[in-house]
């Protein structure tokens, strides 16, 4: 590798500049190094047998509506007619509704997140997180009318 004794080689290689360069490279990579954030993914398999449909007559669902208020740049969450202020309240409402469906022997009733297209993604993920914390796996995203193209 680098170097060599001066007896063998009449022209000794000065390794010091190389070491300097390697140090510089090390410093460069250490500075640009970004620790990978631990991340994961929620499965969100699409249904195979239905597209976007209207609301069924008798909704068997737990629907959370999310509206965007551009003036305040805030998301308003609504559970039925009730405006939900914080996560604890939303958790309680989802849990209560889910428990009701479990009592009716329908534990697979989905939680549907019906969000305005302008709301930030983090607010949707926040609701997904609350739902997952309640061990409810059946979560659906409501989509708008599909393009016919």
């Amino acid at each position, binding site marked *: *590798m*680098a*170097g060599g004794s001066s007896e063998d080689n009449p022209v000794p290689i000065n*390794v*010091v500049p*190389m*070491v300097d360069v*390697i*140090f510089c*490279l*090390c410093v460069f*990579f*250490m500075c*640009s*190094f*970004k*620790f*990978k*954030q*631990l*991340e*994961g*993914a*929620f*499965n*969100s*398999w*699409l*249904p*195979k*047998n239905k*597209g*976007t449909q209207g609301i069924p007559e008798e909704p068997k669902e737990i629907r959370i509506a*999310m509206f965007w208020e*551009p003036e305040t*740049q805030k998301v308003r969450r609504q559970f039925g007619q009730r405006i939900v202020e914080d996560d604890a309240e939303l958790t309680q409402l989802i849990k209560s509704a889910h428990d009701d469906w479990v009592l009716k022997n329908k534990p697979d009733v989905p939680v549907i997140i019906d*969000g*305005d*297209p*302008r*709301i*930030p*993604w*983090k*607010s*949707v*993920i*926040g609701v*997904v*997180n609350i739902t*997952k*914390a309640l061990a409810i796996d059946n979560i659906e*995203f409501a*989509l*708008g009318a*599909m*393009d016919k193209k």
Partner: protein
Amino acid sequence: MSRHKKPEVEESISPNLIPMIDIMFLLLLFFMLGADMSQRELAGELVLPEAAQVPESKTDKDEGVQYTTINIHHDPEDGSPCAVNANGGICREDGHWQWSIRAKNFNKNTLKEQLQIEAEMNMETVPDPVAKKLLSARNVLIRADSAAPFGDIQKVIELCGLVGIYKIEVAAARPAPEGK
């Protein structure tokens, strides 16, 4: 009796730099490999929304599973700075949010074409009994910025559905433990 004269040995004390260089090379290699290469697929910065319940990603562990990662990130088309986004606000300007696959930006029409190509790379071998057609076996991972409009994610999901991709995952980051 002749006394042997001890030969004079010239000792040159010089540090052996070779092991150090080797270690430097190893360190260099370590940092190069440890750097988050997936971020380099991006054209811009992306901050994932946080979710404590998100399961650890198995993307690297599942052998044979083919993924297409779609990044939705803030990157104005004209390259102009966005004051709203820079100040931590929620930007809803047209053309400020980009959809990219492998650092290449797509719009609604071109993304559908690209997804069609990606879907056809890994088709299931038997028709799905429910859908009554061949679906794609490919997984799509949507990595959307925490401030990205939900409408963009909805549109991407819709396009996936149109080309027969149903295995969709949405990425989120684990929040850092408290006190760290």
